[in-house]
């Protein structure tokens, strides 16, 4: 019942905050958001599960499964539960939401109760996405995420917020349609043996080779078509090049806390779903096309990094660098090794924390300088040393400095993918070059904005940031270091959950 309680408390908090007066909404939302943080930490500390949620022989944590709706031969189940892949993401979601709420206090100055209410509603939906094990339930949560996101960007965003919000909404919604069709086609293709949308049932049936024909379409074609439909659907969310162009627009227009949620958690929905659906349910298709998928990964890494290098807006730099970092996740997934897939999952958490940190730091700078253009400022370090120190630490985290979470994640991915499939040595080596470009654009941006003599194009007084602006940054950097020094905090359970997928496909390393 813990997952239900977690989601219900968050939803109830959202409702309470929605009705609260604007003045207290921010503080109230933050305090209430500590409930799910405490809940998820408690769940982590009592977590006991083994195996992968979708595959046979697993024990799930906090599982509930009962028949919800019966429609004809089909039944919809309320099935939720956690394994080593979803548990870290649940923890990430609650912690990052709390910190994002804290980071909202300064920039959000109007309609606070609605803003904070929607943020909590967003959190509840995300918790649902990461814990649902019935496709229908999962899809409802998946779509629920879009609603608050659309409003948060469309109402509290920058000058071009409407364009950005609609673009994001339409783009990801079309993607949802593709993945919906893809998955439903698979379920129908399984025929009478599967009369439910229960993800473990579907996954095990598919892996057992029970897929039949759907009308005139043979099982092999159906499999590939469904894989493509779902891959495209999730690739938009990740985003994988060339489906990424909604992301920078959304980030640039979104207010800081929304960017934190977008980069920190929402993008992980895409990679999480890729892992759960494409890579767990249809491993043979993924492995047969490993090179093609690896090309998408490598292009995302290098092309995304090159785009980041070309940007002159701090926020766009961080936004494009997400494209690059998420490319590593794809590379890790397609490796089908414990290090590769585990590293990919670990990267979801690591990148969630680090990109959240970077967006937050850029936001703090924007709050004081009212500009994000690299050319508009220099030498901020002498005016806001503490913020700059954390910015620097976060940037080095992004560059994958050892003993920080990003390094561990990328190292695992590289270790896992090197030699994992035909051509993987060259793909891995090519993708790894991203670590040089990321250092290039972040160091260049820092040199120009943070160091040198102090100059600023705007007329705002620049001083040290408020405590509640800096505190979440410090919490994040400490978490990043903690996970970098001891990845086992999550990596052990992650390995346990991805091992069945890797082992079944022959890649044990």
């Amino acid at each position: 019942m813990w997952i239900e309680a977690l989601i219900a408390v968050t939803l109830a908090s959202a409702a309470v905050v929605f009705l609260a007066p604007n003045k207290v909404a921010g503080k109230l939302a933050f305090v209430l958001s500590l409930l799910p943080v405490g809940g998820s930490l408690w769940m982590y500390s009592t977590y006991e599960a083994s195996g992968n949620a979708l595959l046979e022989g697993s024990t799930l944590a906090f599982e509930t499964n009962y028949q919800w709706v019966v429609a004809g031969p089909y039944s919809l189940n309320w099935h939720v539960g956690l394994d080593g892949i979803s548990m870290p993401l649940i923890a990430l979601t609650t912690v990052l939401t709390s910190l994002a709420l804290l980071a909202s206090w300064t920039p959000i100055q109007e309609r606070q109760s609605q803003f904070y209410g929607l943020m909590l509603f967003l959190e509840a939906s995300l918790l649902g996405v990461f814990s649902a094990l019935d496709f229908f339930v999962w899809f409802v949560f998946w779509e629920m995420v879009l609603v608050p996101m659309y409003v948060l960007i469309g109402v509290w965003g920058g000058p071009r917020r409407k364009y950005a919000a609609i673009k994001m909404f339409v783009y990801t919604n079309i993607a949802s349609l593709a993945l919906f069709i893809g998955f439903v086609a698979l379920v129908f293709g399984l025929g009478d043996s599967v009369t439910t949308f229960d993800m473990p049932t579907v996954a095990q049936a598919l892996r057992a080779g029970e897929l039949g024909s759907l009308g005139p379409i043979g099982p092999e074609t159906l499999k590939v078509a469904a894989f493509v439909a779902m891959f495209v659907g999730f690739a938009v969310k990740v985003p994988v090049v060339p489906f990424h162009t909604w992301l920078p627009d959304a980030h640039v227009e979104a207010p800081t806390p929304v960017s934190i949620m977008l980069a920190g958690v929402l993008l992980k929905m895409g990679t999480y779903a890729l892992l759960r659906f494409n890579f767990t349910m249809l491993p043979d298709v993924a492995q047969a096309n490993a090179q093609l998928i690896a090309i998408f990964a490598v292009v995302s890494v290098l092309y995304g990094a090159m785009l980041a290098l070309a940007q002159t807006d701090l926020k766009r730099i961080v936004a494009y660098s997400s494209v690059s970092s998420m490319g590593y996740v794809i590379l890790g997934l397609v490796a089908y090794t414990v290090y590769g897939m585990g590293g990919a999952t670990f990267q979801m958490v690591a990148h969630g924390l680090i990109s959240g940190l970077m967006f937050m730091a850029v936001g703090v700078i924007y709050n004081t300088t009212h500009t994000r253009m690299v050319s508009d400022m220099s030498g901020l370090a002498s005016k806001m040393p503490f913020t700059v120190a954390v910015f620097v630490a976060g940037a080095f985290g992004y560059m994958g400095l050892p003993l920080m979470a990003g390094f561990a994640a990328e190292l695992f991915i590289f270790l896992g993918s090197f030699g994992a499939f035909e051509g993987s040595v060259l793909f891995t080596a090519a993708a790894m070059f991203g670590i040089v470009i990321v250092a290039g654009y972040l160091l260049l941006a820092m040199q120009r904005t943070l160091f040198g003599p102090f100059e600023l194009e705007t007329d705002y007084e620049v001083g040290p940031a408020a405590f509640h602006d800096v505190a979440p940054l410090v919490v994040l950097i400490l978490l990043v270091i903690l996970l970098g020094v001891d990845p086992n905090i999550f990596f052990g359970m992650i390995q346990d959950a991805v091992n069945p997928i890797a082992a079944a496909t022959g890649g044990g390393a």
Partner: protein
Amino acid sequence: MAALPFELAPAIAALPFVSFLIALLVGAFAPRLLPKGGAIPGILATAGSLVLSVWAAVAVWNHPDGMYHDSITWVAGVGDAAFDLQFGILLDPLSTMMLVIVSLVAVLVHVFSLGYMNDEGETGLPRYYAGLGLFTASMLSFVFASNLLMAFMFFELVGLCSWLLIGFWFREPGPPSAAKKAFLVTRFGDYFFLVGVVGVFATFGTTAFVGSESFPILADQVLAGEGASVTTFLGLDPQAWFSVLGLLILGGVIGKSAQFPLHTWLPDAMEGPTPVSALIHAATMVAAGVYLVARIYGFYALLPQVMALIALVGGFTALFAATMGVVKREIKQVLAYSTISQYGYMMLGLGAGGYVAATFHLMTHAFFKALLFLGAGSVIIAMHHNENMWDMGGLKEKMPVTYYAFLSGSLALAGIVPFSGFWSKDEVLYEALVHGLESPILLAAYAMGLLAVFFTGFYTFRMVFLTFHGKPRTDTARDPHAVGWNVKVPLVVLGTLAAVAGLVNMVPVAEVTGIHLEFLHDWLDAGPEALTAHHYADLIPYASGEIGSPLLTVLLSAGVSLGLALSGAGAAWLLYDVPEPIRHTDRLGRVKTVLFNNYYQDEFQVWLANGVTLPLARVADKFDQGVIDGVVNGVSSVSLFSGGRIKRIQTGVVSNYAFLLTMGLVVLLVFIGVTGGWF
């Protein structure tokens, strides 16, 4: 339960790390509680590391295995063929020697900083001492790392610290730019290193340096056909694939040790405070690269092509950098190029099979280069932070302690007998010569190294004479700022070491007299079998030649290099040891311009970054905005237009929607099927 000095080994690196934390946290929240801005905790911590390092070295010497090794599992692998990732400490003669050097130089640099930073009224001292502490801790951890992965991790952290310290004066435009360059250029090298680390894991399943399951041993067994089996990639046979791995790891070495073509960051790094330069050049960052090659020498010794390349890069870098040192105006610039050149010698030594010789030079260089930088720092204090040698002159009388210490370091750098640098450089050249007599590539590397000796003698003494001799050329030089004990003590300690450290391994004297004087050789032979000098000597793929007799070869080698060093120094003496020296290098004309601009290497690399990479990024951005996003927006405007027409089918009847949805699915699948050719 291991012996106490071994049990305490983690503290060698932990102590400076604690001083980093103290300087960082107390400096941020209660700066007044921090004595001397963090210098005192730093000095105590590094002194503690020094004591523990010496103790560990003694314990290694007395230990029957000649080493101590312990490791913990950082991340345990899951699955059939998975490998564990480990953190471990390896104390053997090589690593304990390096630990002593690093902690000694670190403690002296901390003391010197009291004079260079505190007494000069610098702000931001806690940040400075925090950086020094982290730098020392990272380097010490790198040195005692027991596997390649851990070495890589601290190798990178050393890079971070160099960024922090080179960019210490961040309010000026120069230092942040230099810091960025240093990190970026070494990161470029580290990229290859990381690919190498991952490749070693994939090949051997381990990156351990020591033990029967270590990768150098496995590689040896594979190449000898003794049963061990490994996975190779890219369709290469083990010999070729191991060479690829060796080259990849070498990328990191070339970046950190500032070898051609990745040497360009190092002269720029002079933007940092001078004590930091001393630390970077003598004992930490730059030394890390060469140390790494020595650490996995058992692997490199199996790869003749890679060894030859190391020797060639080293010999070339030694000569190339020495020529640039000849024309520099600023004292620290001369020293920067001398560092590049001297590490070239170490690479030459390693590549030529002279493991002991290169390690020896690593040690003597650490002493005399730290000395020269600290001496230069003393001069810079005296000159009120003017570094231009043409504004100095005649400082000899005003600052005798600095002068004699600096002179000792200069004699060592130039390789004049009996100062330390002579013995070590001579041994490097001797190894290159005897192996070069049987291998033309090594002979070419030797020739470049030998020629560089002349230039070294010249630029070293040009620097000495311009700085200390002649008449003062400016008012500041006439009335220099006095320096305190905290500057003089480190200079005296290092000045003595630079003079006498060479006595530990006097190969030519040993050969002539027959007296056993090769103590360093004995020391490096004391470790576990697979990490000893004579094991490496068995492995190296070279035959030795001689000219006449072994004795004659030794004497000839020493005589020629000493003669060249003396003639270089003599030329400088003739030209610059006059009351009012003139700019003789101007007579070189265009050659000087080329040298002064470092053969346009910097321009080339800046062009690669600004002229190629950035425009490429902008093209990618244009493409992204115009083409990829253009398609997205184009699709949406088409659908908006058609949406107006299609609005009519929005009936609100769910069954119609269901029909359309199903039709859509069918059309989509048919489309994909047809285009994908699956029917």
